[in-house]
């Protein structure tokens, strides 16, 4: 069954040196004479990447960012980020003769007078929506599987910054065409800034170069959108990838897959081909969406006019949740000593996103503080095996989702025939109650799934074969799972015993939680983290259970059927994936 792992590893590295250099080798030698890359490349060309679909979610983000760069460069060739007023004289009849900004006029030109321009505009916008969406699902995958633990906390921080910058990049891009929707967004942003105590109106006047809307905001946002943020994004993406390569990718537990190794395909050729092929697939899907699905038809919105507005004025989806918070916030203002502090704007749009981002950033550090776990982790945890952590993220997702729904309350109202007032009242309560309910349900759900795993390990899996005993009773036949599957299910650390605090460092190398200033709180959180979890069975428990099962099987006879089912189980469940 097993193969000698060390032999595989050596044969892999020695194979490359033995052969005489071919044509590719000649090029490589020419390059190495000048660049000396061989030292760095010898490890990395055959660097191992484990294969799992969920490890490719971050790749969607990376590749859609590349699509953004390419399509964005195309758009800059025609887009004119100026608020100078011109009279439109292009191909779109229903706006001919209207006065508008050059930014909007050039957006129309891109849409109607440049072949492929509308395609590129729509691709750029779809890629932006997918960029941020894929960063979020990548973040969820990392958190749910525990890949944010030591030594990867800093990469988590970089990822969070990427998400924040990506959102800002999206918002600045949304504002550039200067159509009615983007102008309404900028106007709301002006209101957000003005809500800040003391500095608010100054910030607004500095940003807009005077009173809203001024003539500076679009050129300024353009610089931020095409130079400042993309530069930061590129640098952070590079750092993110370097750390990924340095740490090596995490992997799922399974036969032969341990904390000390990484099992998968080499960078060259398989992983490079799969990653490169995925780039073209991401690009292709975005191209199809850009060609077939209308996104932000700016010609219908018309040029921005501060006295016009449209029903369904919403930001793009990633700004939807703070917009939802704005919608359900009750109208609170403090009027004191000739000053106004508008909590109804300041809290939901300035304080809340900052708070949520800080929570996100601190998640790995809070977790390691609570658990006291300072060990490196390279094997992923199944979400069910960290019930409290999984439940925490589901609670955050519920909060986010409810806020998000509140941000689309008018569309929900017309599509589902509801009242915006009722939706708003419901959401005001639900954003507080919903996450708590979601936390409890998820945590118990995870623990139930752990129990099910334990059941399978100790008593075997359900075969679907119904046995009838001589007494006439019916029971379902259970058979033990395959060795590799059993190993995979048990290949996880036992949680520390929180019921009896031990002295200093326990058997698993975890620090004593009873030291430190906040020890009481820490102890309580630690209990919440672990107390109800189901631990993997010990060797003795397994043996006892199997002995019992054998005894049972003898009792019920029919060894022939057992044998058949057992072999079927081995084939069906190879484990590890």
């Amino acid at each position, binding site marked *: 069954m097993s193969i000698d792992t060390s032999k595989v590893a050596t044969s892999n590295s020695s194979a490359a040196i033995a052969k005489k250099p071919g044509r590719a080798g000649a090029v490589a030698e020419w390059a190495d004479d000048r660049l000396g890359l061989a030292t760095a490349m010898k490890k990395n060309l055959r660097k191992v990447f484990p294969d799992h679909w969920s490890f490719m979610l971050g790749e969607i983000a990376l590749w859609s960012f590349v699509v953004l760069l390419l399509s964005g460069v195309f758009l800059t060739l025609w887009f004119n980020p100026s608020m100078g007023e011109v009279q439109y004289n292009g191909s779109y009849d229903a*706006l001919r003769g209207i006065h508008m900004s050059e930014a909007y006029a050039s957006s129309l030109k891109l849409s109607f007078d440049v072949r492929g321009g509308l395609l590129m505009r729509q691709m750029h916008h779809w890629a932006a929506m997918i960029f941020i969406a894929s960063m979020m699902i990548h973040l969820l995958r990392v958190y749910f599987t525990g890949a944010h633990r030591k030594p990867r906390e800093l990469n988590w921080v970089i990822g969070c910054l990427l998400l924040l910058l990506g959102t800002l990049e999206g918002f600045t891009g949304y504002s550039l065409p200067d159509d009615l929707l983007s102008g309404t967004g900028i106007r709301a942003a002006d209101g957000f800034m003005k809500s800040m105590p003391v500095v608010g109106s100054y910030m607004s006047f500095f940003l807009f170069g005077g009173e809203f809307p001024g003539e500076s905001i679009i050129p300024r946002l353009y610089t931020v959108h095409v130079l400042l943020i993309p530069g930061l994004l590129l640098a952070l993406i590079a750092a993110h990838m370097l750390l990924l390569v340095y740490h090596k990718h995490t992997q799922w537990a399974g036969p032969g897959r341990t904390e000390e190794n990484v099992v998968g395909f080499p960078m060259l050729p398989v992983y490079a081909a799969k990653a490169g*092929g995925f780039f073209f697939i991401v690009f292709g899907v975005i191209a199809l969406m850009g060609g077939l699905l209308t996104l932000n038809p700016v010609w219908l919105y018309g040029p921005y006019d501060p006295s016009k507005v449209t029903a369904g004025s919403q930001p793009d989806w990633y700004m939807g949740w703070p917009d939802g918070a704005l919608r359900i916030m009750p109208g609170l203002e403090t009027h004191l000593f000739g000053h106004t502090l508008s909590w109804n704007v300041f809290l939901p749009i300035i304080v809340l996103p900052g708070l949520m981002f800080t929570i996100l950033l601190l998640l790995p550090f809070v977790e390691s503080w609570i658990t006291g776990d300072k060990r490196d982790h390279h094997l992923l945890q199944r979400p069910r095996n960290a019930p409290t952590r999984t439940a925490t993220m589901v609670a955050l997702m519920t909060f986010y989702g409810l806020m998000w729904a509140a941000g689309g309350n008018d569309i929900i109202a017309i599509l589902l025939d509801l009242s915006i007032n009722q939706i708003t009242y419901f959401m005001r309560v639900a954003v507080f109650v919903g996450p708590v309910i979601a936390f409890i349900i998820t945590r118990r759900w995870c623990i139930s799934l752990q129990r099910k795993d334990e059941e399978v390990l100790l008593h075997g899996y359900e075969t679907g074969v119904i046995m009838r005993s001589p007494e006439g009773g019916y029971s379902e036949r259970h058979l033990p799972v395959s060795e590799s599957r059993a190993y995979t299910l048990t290949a996880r650390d036992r949680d520390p015993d929180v019921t009896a605090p031990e002295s200093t460092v326990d058997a698993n190398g975890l620090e004593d939680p009873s030291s430190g200033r906040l020890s009481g709180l820490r102890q309580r959180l630690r209990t919440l983290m672990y107390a109800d979890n189901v631990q993997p069975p010990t060797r003795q428990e397994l043996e006892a259970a199997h002995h019992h099962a054998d005894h049972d099987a003898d009792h019920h006879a029919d060894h022939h059927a057992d044998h058949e089912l057992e072999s079927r189980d081995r084939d069906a469940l190879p484990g590890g994936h």
Partner: protein
Amino acid sequence: MRFLNRSVGRLSRHRRGPVAGLVLLLLGLLVSGGLYAGLAPASADETRTDAELIAEGRELFLVSCAFCHGQNGEGLETLNGNILGPSLVGVGAAAVDFQVGTGRMPMAQPGAQAPTKPEELDEDETEAVAAFVASLGPGPAVPSPEDYSLDGLDDEEREQAIVRGGQIFLTNCTACHNFNGKGGAMPRGGAAPDLSNTTPEHIYEAMLTGPGQMDSFSNGNLSPEEKRDVIAYLMNLREQPNYGGFTLGGLGPVSEGLFAWLGGIGALVAFAVWIAAHTTRSSKKKGETA
């Protein structure tokens, strides 16, 4: 083979399909009768047919409308002071043609907003009821096709009318009906309806009379030419191609975001699953003979 169709872009080259002309003709025939009936009470010598029309309308009114609006259209209140049906004195034939012609009236049950449904009265009956209601007091008449058609304008004037109509639409109408005329939400469960399939005549009447909770845009507010231009813009919206592909409902960023997640992320994750999935395996070993 009208799949590939050149020359749709420029308005000046827009030509209506043959069906549009027929519809217009039918509408003209229908409406001219209604208009005549609507104007009839003001004229001194009522012809016998008008009187008949009003009488027929009164019969229909008593059956279909009087339960809420009273036997003489004076309006009724419930015991606790709520209005069951408002007074119809002075609402004019246009209001009747709109409310009954779009199926909003007669309502199936009292409520804040009358939903559209298949018309219960046919065109002749609607005309008769309109004539009866118009006879209760002077009010806006059913508009004639000339009021909302751009016929008689040259190409440049048409284009200007559409552009002006677009500006008026974006100023006065999009706030409730959305930039695409697809409708939007209003307080307490109300909704501004989708205008995609509303006939020009009904749009004109709605602006004139302000049905339900909608504001009226009387001739002092938007002149008849401005109303005509708004309708011309809306008709142009319907005729012009969807330049960017499928419209996703035309509801703005919410539906777009939904598609980014379900369509975009959904497809890409499906591809990722395929890429990482294991290929089929053979029970043979390499080197074995087949």
